[in-house]
Structure formats: structure tokens, C-alpha cells
């Protein structure tokens, strides 16, 4: 794993990608730090970080696009998979290398609260907690990008796919608010989701009976649930889905100064989930 980590890290700095990524993130942090804190005189760096999550949408795809896709294209995955190293270690080594590249601008950002402290009042506790959670959100997005990169051998597709997925996660709270709130609207949306799941199941297993049974059982459950407890369907989708919002946790830290321990755990477990899925994608390709 260490060998893979070292190789990946070196490859980021042998090519332009590592430098471009770091320059981009540092530039955006620097501009917002200057505008908000230095010129604007606002003492909280946490607030600045909270307002630049959008930089992930551009920077993370640049960082993650080649991580798995390039191996497929150059067929070097054949080397990694026939060497005495497990897929989990390959995925982890690559992930940690990207996290290390991402840590460079975060280390520079860690000086910002100190600069504020030297010039007046500062809130070091919330600032550093926010830097931590901002870093963890970045790690989560990196794991998303790595998963997308494992699905294709084209870096371009990986980059655009990651951008699309991150955009969806970024806009999630707003999108969720447009979902139907009435009980019957929720029921209809659930039927659509159910059909989607059944179709996905069919395309994966090619088992008509199984997907039809899932669809039928789900339909009955929705209809019965709607007839018996229609009121609990009110705002069900927004309530459930908004809890999956990735940026909410950062907002808690940055805007409301709340140390959201559950949110930290949410970030870490989501990251672990995406890394696990990446391993599964690689394994699945071996067995197909």
C-alpha cells in the first residue's frame, strides 16, 4: 500500500495535476480570505470556508479523474491486480495520495486563523473545527470522484461524471425542497422510485420474476401505507432525503458554530462507503 501511495503521490507532482489542483484551491481560499477577513474585517475564517464549497466542484474532478481510469487505459491495473497486494490496499493507497495532495492547501489555510488572531479578535476553536470538517468533506468528495474514475477508462468522462455527481450533492438541499410535499404526491414519487429500483434490479440480475415481485410488493406496501397512514406521507421525501445533505454538516460548523459530531461521523462513514464501492467495482470487473 505504501508503494502505491508513494507512486501516486509522485505522479501528481510529476504531472501538472497536483500543482494545478493546489494552485486552484489556494487561490480561491486566498481570494475569499482577503475579501471576507482581511479587507472585509470579518473575524471568522469558518464563514469564509463555508462559502467556498463550490471550489470542490471544479478542483476535485481534476484531482480524481485519472486515479483509477488511467490504470485501465494504460492496462497497468493488470500489474496491480497480479501483484501480491489486495484491491482494498490499491484503492486506499490511491485515496490517501489524493488526500495528501488535498492536505497541502488545507495546511496553508490553517495559517489564516492565526493571521486573523495576530490582527485582532479571532475564534480559533470554530475556525479549526471548520477547517477539519471542510477537509473531511473534501475527502468524501475525493472518494466520490475515485468511484466515478473506477467506472470508466476515460479521464474526461470521469471528470464530467464526478462534476455532475458533486453538483447534485452540492445542490441537494435546494433540490430536495422542490420535491412533492402532499401525501398523494409523495406516494406517486415513491412509486416512481420503486419502479426505478425494480428496473435497476432487472438490469443487474436479468431476473424478470424477481424484479416484478419487488415492484408488486412495493406497490402494495405504498398503497396500504397511504390508505392506513396517509398523514405520515406528508413531507416524507423532503424529510428523509434532506438528511443526506452533505453540505448541511459544514453549514452547522461554519454558519451556526455547532460542533456536529454526528455530522463528522456521517462524512467519515460516507467516505468509507464510497471507497468500499470502488473496491467492489474493481472486483466486479475481474469476475465478469
Amino acid at each position, binding site marked *: 500500500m505504501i508503494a502505491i501511495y508513494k507512486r501516486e503521490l*509522485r505522479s501528481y507532482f510529476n504531472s501538472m495535476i497536483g500543482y494545478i489542483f493546489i494552485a486552484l484551491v489556494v487561490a480561491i481560499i486566498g481570494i475569499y480570505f482577503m475579501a471576507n477577513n482581511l479587507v472585509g474585517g470579518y473575524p471568522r475564517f469558518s464563514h469564509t470556508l463555508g462559502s467556498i464549497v463550490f471550489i470542490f466542484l471544479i478542483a476535485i474532478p481534476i484531482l480524481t479523474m485519472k486515479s483509477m481510469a488511467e490504470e485501465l487505459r494504460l492496462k497497468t491495473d493488470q500489474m496491480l491486480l497480479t501483484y501480491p497486494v*489486495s484491491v482494498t490496499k490499491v484503492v486506499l493507497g490511491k485515496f490517501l495520495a489524493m488526500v495528501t495532495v488535498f492536505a497541502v492547501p488545507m495546511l496553508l489555510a490553517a495559517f489564516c486563523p492565526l493571521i486573523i488572531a495576530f490582527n485582532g479578535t479571532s475564534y480559533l476553536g470554530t475556525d479549526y473545527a471548520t477547517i477539519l470538517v471542510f477537509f473531511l468533506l473534501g475527502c468524501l468528495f475525493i472518494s466520490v470522484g475515485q468511484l466515478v474514475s473506477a467506472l470508466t477508462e476515460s479521464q474526461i468522462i470521469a471528470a464530467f461524471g464526478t462534476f455532475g455527481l458533486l453538483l447534485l450533492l452540492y445542490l441537494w438541499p435546494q433540490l430536495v425542497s422542490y420535491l412533492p410535499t402532499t401525501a398523494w404526491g409523495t406516494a406517486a414519487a415513491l412509486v416512481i422510485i420503486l419502479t426505478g429500483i425494480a428496473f435497476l434490479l432487472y438490469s443487474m440480475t436479468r431476473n424478470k420474476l424477481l424484479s416484478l415481485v419487488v415492484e408488486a410488493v412495493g406497490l402494495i406496501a405504498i398503497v396500504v401505507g397511504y390508505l392506513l397512514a396517509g398523514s405520515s406521507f406528508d413531507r416524507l421525501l423532503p424529510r428523509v432525503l434532506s438528511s443526506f445533505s452533505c453540505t448541511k454538516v459544514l453549514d452547522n460548523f461554519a454558519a451556526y458554530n455547532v460542533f456536529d459530531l454526528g455530522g463528522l461521523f456521517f462524512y467519515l462513514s460516507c467516505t468509507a462507503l464510497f471507497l468500499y464501492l470502488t473496491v467492489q467495482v474493481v472486483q466486479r470487473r475481474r469476475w465478469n
Partner: protein
Amino acid sequence: MIEVRNLVKRYGDRLAVDNLSFTAEKGRIYGFLGPNGAGKTTTMNIMTGYLGPTSGDVIVDGRSMLEDPEEVKRFIGYLPEHPPLYIDMTVSEYLTFAAELKKIPKSRQKSEIEKAVEYTFLQDVSGRLIRNLSKGYRQRVGLAQAILGFPEIIILDEPTVGLDPKQIMEIRDLIRSLGREHTVIFSSHILSEVQEVCDHVLIIHRGKLLANGTPEELERQMRNTTLELTVRSSSLEQVKNMLLALPGVVSVVEDKNDQPGQVSLKIETAPDIDPRDDIFYACAENRTPILTLRGLDMSLEQIFLSLTADNVQPADSSVFNQFGKQEVEEL
């Protein structure tokens, strides 16, 4: 020692490897022979753990590839069809990475890399970026990573494709010297190469193992059981009866012959008896001069062609024969 047990690989409806079993022992060189798309690469990819089999297993020194992949892979060096090279690294950086990944102890890494570089004649380019190397050198770098640390089993997928004749000779020499102490398995569709280098030939076609043995064994097994005989005689019946009385002659069929006073025959013989001596004496006794008597032992390429052509659909057979001819011409 590596053992392949009942290997099956299915891609959707297509059977790429069909119940393949064989054993490869230490100190021998095994040649995988088969037309394109025969399942050679798939088999090798499964043997090295790159692909998972649909069923079956690969056993190395009693350990299963499915149950203990990380341990088993330590004993295998693999050069895939396309050398898996990180083109942004120099040759020595790349081999250091390979050595670390192979878990070669730090103290031995340098000497092992030097040995691999020496074996593959890479001394002159070790500081250059792989991106800037020619195809032949890239192939050698791929070979260097496969033999790095000298694992017991070395598997090479078409190691000589795309190389110039001198490089091909070098790689064949390398395979020969590796074969003294290791199990070497390499695939090729060039028959002369297999014949020249291998102790043992495995012929694969449509995912099935059609023949397995030393080149000599195969030639013996496949000895042609048809003889061609032309004698000077006016009576076909008499010659026929004379031949059918001999031990080992199964059937006699008349062959076309336009020359007056000559009789040509095709004689089918039992596989374990060679009746040529008896034919000679019988003809001499009957004062029937033999003009020609041909009984061909098949060469490896004929064995290959006959084994693989039997199963080829009529539609492809012309293409395949053409391919066979090219091979023969190449020899």
C-alpha cells in the same frame, strides 16, 4: 509447480475457457499454442489472478489462488500482452516500485533490480522515462518487472510480438535460461518459436485443451496413419489383396493415377503398427516395383493445423488455412 483445475470462464453466453486442466512443473518451459481468440490470454489472466474464473481454481504449491490470492501471487511473475508500464516513470523508478509492491525486502531490492536489468539488457536506458522508449525496450521493461525477484513461476503472454528478429532471439535466449530453474509458461502463435524453445506444448483452441505433451510426444501421437503407395502393376485387385493380407493394414483405397501401368493406393494403417517393411518385402516377392511410398510424420505445425482446423466452422476455415500457410512460409 502450478496446477490449473477445471478452469471455466464464461463471458455472457460465450465460453472463453472450457474446462481446462493441466500441470506445469519446475525447470520446464511450457508453450501455449493456439490461434487468435483461443483463450490463451484469458487463461493466463486467470492463472495470474487478474481475472476471476467462473469455476475451477489455480493451485500453486498446494495453495489456492481463490482462497489465498496475496500469498499465491508472490510466486508468479506475469508479463501481460500489453506491458503494464507507468509511462511517467523512469525505468529504474518503475522497477523500484515493482520491487516494493512485490514485497522484496529492502536490503535485496537493489541487487534484484540490477539482476533483472542485466537479464533484459536495460542497463543503457535505466535512467530514461518509459514514455520515451521504443516498443522493444518497453517490452523488455515489462519482462524485467515479470522476472524481478525471480518468482518460481513466470508467465509471459506473447513476449515476442512486435519485436525485431534480433530482439526475438534475445528474448528466446532469456526464456531458455529462465527455464532452467523456473516454471516458464509462455504463449505464442508462432509455431517455430514454440518448437524451438519449449519442453512442453499445450495446444488450445476455443478454450479447450486439445493436446498436451512434448513436441516429440505430440508428433508420435499424431503420426500419420495414412500411407501413399504407387507401384508398377497392371492389376489393382492383386495389389489390393496382397496389401490387405499384411498385418497392420486396415483398409486400402484406390487413388487417382493417370499413368498407364501404375497403381496408386491410399493405405490406412493401425496407429501402433508400422507396416512399411512388410509392404516392401511383399511387393518384392510379388515382383511389383515400388515407385513411391510415403508415410509422413506430422510436424508440429501440421499437428496444430489439423487439431485446430477440425473444429473450425467452414466459414472461417479458409481464413484459418491462410493463416496457417503464412505461418509455414514464415518458417
